[in-house]
């Protein structure tokens, strides 16, 4: 079985021959990509935001608004989910051929649930940032206090030493 060698490295390295003597003689690295790009045939975007449910073609069951009461919506979606599962059980007993619609409803509820949970993540990120800032402020205050205390103690020691020197 023939084994292939690795492909050769890209030939750009020849441009950097004089880099250690003159850093400006070689080309700059390319700037970061902006906007959507294509990688191995798939489209990716540089703007990392959670795509809305409507864009994915999924009906949104919870009411949209600037501030969503997450706890209430999550709980009501949970109740709806259980109700739908009871409906599915009933349908399987009485009209087994109509399961498809019910199963679709249940999967729709699950997609809504996961989308709600995903949209909680930015909130969590901001809360983490607030927490980290508070911790940092606390540490800095502690450091200021420590330095002040040490300085006062050093002053006191020097004064004592001066007193002993004068005393002799």
């Amino acid at each position, binding site marked *: 079985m023939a084994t292939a060698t690795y492909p050769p490295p890209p030939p750009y390295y020849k441009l950097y021959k004089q880099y250690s003597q003159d850093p400006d003689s070689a080309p700059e690295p390319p700037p970061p990509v902006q906007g959507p790009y294509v990688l191995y045939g798939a489209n990716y975007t540089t703007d990392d935001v959670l795509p809305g449910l409507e864009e994915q073609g999924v009906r949104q069951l919870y009411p949209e608004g600037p501030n969503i009461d997450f706890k209430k919506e999550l709980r009501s979606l949970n109740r709806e*989910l259980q109700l739908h599962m009871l409906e599915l059980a009933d349908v399987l007993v009485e009209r087994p051929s109509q399961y498809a619609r019910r199963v679709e409803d249940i999967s729709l509820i699950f997609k809504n649930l996961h989308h709600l949970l995903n949209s909680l993540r930015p909130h969590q990120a901001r809360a983490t940032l607030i927490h980290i800032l508070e911790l940092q*402020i606390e540490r*800095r205050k502690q450091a200021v206090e420590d330095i002040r205390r040490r300085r006062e103690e050093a002053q006191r020691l020097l004064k004592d030493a001066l007193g002993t020197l004068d005393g002799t």
Partner: protein
Amino acid sequence: MDIITQLQEQVNAIASIAFNTFGTLQRDAPPVQLSPNYPEPPANSNAAEDAASLADQPKLLSAELVKAAKQFDALVSALPLTEGGEEAQLKRIEELQGENDAIGQELQKQLEAAEKELKQVQELFGQATDNCLNLRKPD
């Protein structure tokens, strides 16, 4: 594991319990007579123990399902969701940044003063030891 990940895991757990429940019940259910024209299938020899476990299974499985749903509700109420939304959080972040900068500058000032004092003390100590070594008496 943080609370949102726990919630997501719980949702997936509810989903897997659900399809396990329906799958098991559907697989183990005895056949139903569709029309009086077709005769009943012959009863199995172990019909008695089948009937017992078949009566228990829905109870156990649905108890699992309800327990998982209750767990989800408990996790939802444990969410530390501060009312106020995005703007309130951003405002708080700005406040904290301002406070952080102020106290950072204070820290920097204290640090510089302390370093200056340290250098002074070191210089004086050097002078004192020089005197001790050269003249054998403090100046």
